[in-house]
């Protein structure tokens, strides 16, 4: 029995932390707010190997499993990496596209505008017959969003016949591969959310230690401490659920889908609550776009509902439980 990340996964996270501390500063995240696709950052992610994290080594990837995936993505969440990182990593194993960070793959799964489409090079369109769309050939209209780095875009009439040359598995029996893609994307989003929560917590702890009112640091007030402690309980109990779901996927556990839903439901709720508590503990300084907190708060709001809401995942867990009890 060992529950936790392996030393290799911990080292991967450490390495990524080092790289991102200079490659993904708040200034870089802010540039994404102005529509910049952040190509230098993505190039760095590419040389680190992140896009190919789940791609087998004989195809040029890192050939790692879902545990390394959540370790890396949680760290990326702390830095607020802009762009379709989770979507690119989970799509890469299905496609024959470069893994060097020159390709950013958004995923379309509902009729609305597509997250990240306005800063991506491709869209994997799962709405009807799965198709890979090269965005250089279609028009993408950016849609205003609360977190402007999210770069949602509506795509003009999907041109046909794009499940073409660069596509490896979309032509074969793709149901299993696409189901796995969805589970991995959901799980990755859960991990990213907990990274965002950890960043907001770090900012808040530093701030309330420093900010003085009534002659003492505001962090010495219990009315400030206790909500933070409660939010920490939520995130601390969500992270093991993310790890377990990753393990279940990597070992083909038949309950993996249920475990992924559990992870996303807990992570969405925990990260959202953390964002509320952190904003409140900051007072007005948290309520301006000039301070960094909002970069992570607004991404939390977006991702909490992306790849399905906590309520939808809870409903999925409920269905699985009722089936179990009935059988």
């Amino acid at each position: 029995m060992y529950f936790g990340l392996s030393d290799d996964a911990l080292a991967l996270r450490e390495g990524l932390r080092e790289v991102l501390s200079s490659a993904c500063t708040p200034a870089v995240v802010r540039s994404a707010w102005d529509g910049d696709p952040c190509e230098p950052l993505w190039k760095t992610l590419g040389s680190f190997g992140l896009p190919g994290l789940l791609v087998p080594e004989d195809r040029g990837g890192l050939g790692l499993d879902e545990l390394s995936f959540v370790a890396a993505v949680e760290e990326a969440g702390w830095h607020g990496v802009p762009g379709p990182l989770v979507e690119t990593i989970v799509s890469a194993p299905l496609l024959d596209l470069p893994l060097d960070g020159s390709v950013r793959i958004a995923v379309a799964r509902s009729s609305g505008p597509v997250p990240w489409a306005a800063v991506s090079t491709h869209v994997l369109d799962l709405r009807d017959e799965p198709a890979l769309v090269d965005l250089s050939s279609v028009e993408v209209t950016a849609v205003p969003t609360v977190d402007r780095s999210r770069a949602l875009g509506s795509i003009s009439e999907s041109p046909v016949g794009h499940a073409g040359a660069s596509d490896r598995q979309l032509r074969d029996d793709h149901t299993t591969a696409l189901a796995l893609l969805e589970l991995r994307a959901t799980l990755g989003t859960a991990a990213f959310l907990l990274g965002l929560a950890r960043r907001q917590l770090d900012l808040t702890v530093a701030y309330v230690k420093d900010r003085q009112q009534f002659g003492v640091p505001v962090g010495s007030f219990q009315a400030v401490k206790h909500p933070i402690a409660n939010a920490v309980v939520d995130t601390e109990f969500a992270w093991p659920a993310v790890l377990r779901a990753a393990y279940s996927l990597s070992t083909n556990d038949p309950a993996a889908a249920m475990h992924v839903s559990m992870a996303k439901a807990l992570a969405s709720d925990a990260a959202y609550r953390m964002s509320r508590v952190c904003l409140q503990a900051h007072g007005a300084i948290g309520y301006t776009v000039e301070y960094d907190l909002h970069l992570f708060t607004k991404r939390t709001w977006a991702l909490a509902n992306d790849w399905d809401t906590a309520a939808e995942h809870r409903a999925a867990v409920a269905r699985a439980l009722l089936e179990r009890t009935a059988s």
Partner: protein
Amino acid sequence: MDLTETTDEAAFRDEARAWLDANVPAAPLPSGDTREGFALHLEWERRLFEARWAVVSWPAAYGGRDASVWQWLAFEEEYYRAGAPQRVTQNGIFLLAPTLFAFGTQEQQDALLPRMASAQDLWCQGWSEPGAGSDLASLTSRALRDEAAGGWRLSGQKTWTTRGAFCTHIFGLFRSDPSSQRHHGLTYFLVPLDAPGVTVRGFARLDGDEGFAEVWFDDVFIPDSAVLGGVGEGWKVAMATTGSERGLSLRSPGRYTATVDRLLRLAASRDVDATVESRLAQAWMDAEAYRLFTLRQVSAEQAGRGRPGESSLNKLFWSELDIRLHELALDILGPEAELEGPWSKGFQFSLSGPIYAGTNEVQRNIVAERLLGLPRK
């Protein structure tokens, strides 16, 4: 990450399950917090001991099985899954014993542990006083040195002592240095309740059972051998005990996963709407999350990556989880919720979770100050 049980662990679990299936009383025992119920629970404890299931994680020499923490967790899971009786010996075997293993002399361990395991000595916990609750360091019970007799004379009053009226021994903190303040000058004593000068009065908890007691000490003599961990070292030793109480050893995850299983069976026997279904899903996830958190915690500790204040995270989570599980059961029961029964009883008990073992407000202080490093007042 490796969540497969080793063959040893699986064999241990199977053996525990088989024994429990064959031995757990078919009908639930009356509450162990009543006089008659306590006596029936003692019979059960002695059966556990004879079959060497009473203290599985202890060394075989003291009646245990040298179980690893993983085996212990598996045993706990099986114990609650089988619906086995509450452990009325818990304050001895789960709270005092780890402290004895860490701080006791060989003589103390040899004398006390076997009698504790076999439920001959029944231990209660003497921290709180009428004037000292959360602020335990303000306690005023005293220990005066009696050099001539080679021991100590205890006076003062303890209260809220769980099952004190049914127990034979008490462990507790006394101020042994009259000039000392706060956390200093306290000593941890092990006291038989039949010592001359001890008076015990049981009284009822919220659910009406006689689960509480007040204990008075009127110039009670005890020998030096009754000191655990050194004169003046009481605070440090007591903190080890409270760490066990907040964390894993008192409240293992099996307790909550079993409660959720019962909850799911209750729900399956009724018509429940989508709101209740969603709360059931949350209940299952929360109990699972507690289980997974403890697996992570044990692994991290074994790898030397434990963090200060972590047991306060456990305590906050299990205590609030327990209330939510029972609230949901009562909502499913609807008009039947007010009837005396396991759920209404369990609900009342769950409400004490955020109070005992250090209130949840105090735990939040600990998380904020020790885990996050926020400034103290």
